[in-house]
């Protein structure tokens, strides 16, 4: 198991878990806010729709469905 922080909250996940899956398991629903401020979450799951973009280790606009969790990673979603 590895541990990542989702909005400051520790989440333990199996190795190979994607950041998107970890965010959902942390109980978060909103991944990003659209240009009009709507709540959005993953749609395609395969890296083409960009709806699951979050900030990972300070780097914004990362497609969370395509990034495997790294131990100690800090993930920040929109609120």
């Amino acid at each position, binding site marked *: 198991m590895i541990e990542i922080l989702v909005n400051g909250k520790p989440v333990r996940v*199996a190795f190979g*878990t*994607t950041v998107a*899956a970890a965010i959902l398991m942390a109980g978060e629903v909103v*991944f990003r806010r659209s*240009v009009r401020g709507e709540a959005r979450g993953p749609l*395609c799951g*395969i890296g083409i729709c960009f709806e699951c973009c979050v900030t990972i280790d300070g780097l914004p606009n990362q497609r969370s469905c395509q990034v495997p969790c790294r131990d100690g990673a800090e993930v920040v979603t929109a609120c």
Partner: protein
Amino acid sequence: MKDSLACEIVVVGAGPAGLAAACTAAGRTRSVAIVDGNTAPGGQIWRGEVRMPGIDRARISQVRLLSDTLVVDCPGDHSLLAVQGDRAVEIRYEKLILATGARERFLPFPGWTLPTVVGTGGLQAIVKGGMRIAGKRVVIAGSGPLLLAVAAYLCRQGARIAMIAEQAPRSAVFRFARTVARSPRKLLQSISLMQSLTGTPYRTGCWPIEAVEGAVTLSRGGKTWSEPCDYLACGFGLVPNTELAALLGCVLQDGFVAVDTCQQTTQPGVFCAGEPTGIGGVEPAIVEGRIAGYCATGRMDEAARLFPERDRGNRFRRALEEAFRLRPELAGLTGPDTIVCRCEDVTFARIAKHGNWRAIKLQTRCGMGPCQGRVCGPAVEFLLGIPPDSVRPPIFPVPVGLLSEDL
């Protein structure tokens, strides 16, 4: 400095078609590379799976695999530009095989942008990515055999599938089932699917008309009702990924990449296999991949032996298209205030005023966000009959620093 790589045969995409093409080509030349955007080979269909039936595993080890690598441009003759993490890679080839697969088609209806509305394949991919779905109530809606495959997978993971809503009419689905029953392998697949779905309601001629938090309103035979769910998984068939083919100048026909009997596109030396030439799943993709692999390495005789199998695959593709054709009523689900372009939040009313893509883009920014029209493009085509008309590099968003390295 950019990294660079040169191979005789370069395959784009490591799904069934790409793996079959690369393994076949590797039987003749040691200089084969696969470039793939995912973390591991297998494409969408074999995501997270060890078994890849029909693929010569021993040969994969002879192929150079570049994972997490997105092709974004074709800057010169026989050359691709790809992005791998924070590095740019120039990939040079003698022959190119495109096996870029397909994505789900999403149709806009009120509530489809809610975070709890996910693609069917999308939800499966996220669960394969480690999300726990056990105990969650899921409604699966849309069209095509993928609905059943995803339902069976989610069931095995402990989800409660409240309903599978298939928009196609019962008669068409039954006709398709009879076609499938003629192929022993497909019949076995269907039987095992049905066994894992015992007790799950499968409704034909049924589709979602509105999603709200915690429920979806479904419509069937003029009746509507609300079905409670934690997630609505929704996808209306598949659309081919043709962006790279179009950028290379390959002719598209009715949205698919046009190929000759050798799987060669209208650009000499550029081959294409699998979903971009016709939606039909794993079996047609593998046989086309093998034909492309043989032909790209000059072995037409061996390729020709596979033509009857490819013909069978093409018949299956036609039956699939016929059975799960989208009903025109689905276009009526999109209201004037329904968002069509999710990247730029553009509503249907704003798009419907324009008669071509250029005007739509210039006036509304629809299709100009990070997905580059991959989601809204097929939706606009279905709603207004306007097919996407141009592709420009980079075909995936890249950090501008990578493109400016040479300046």
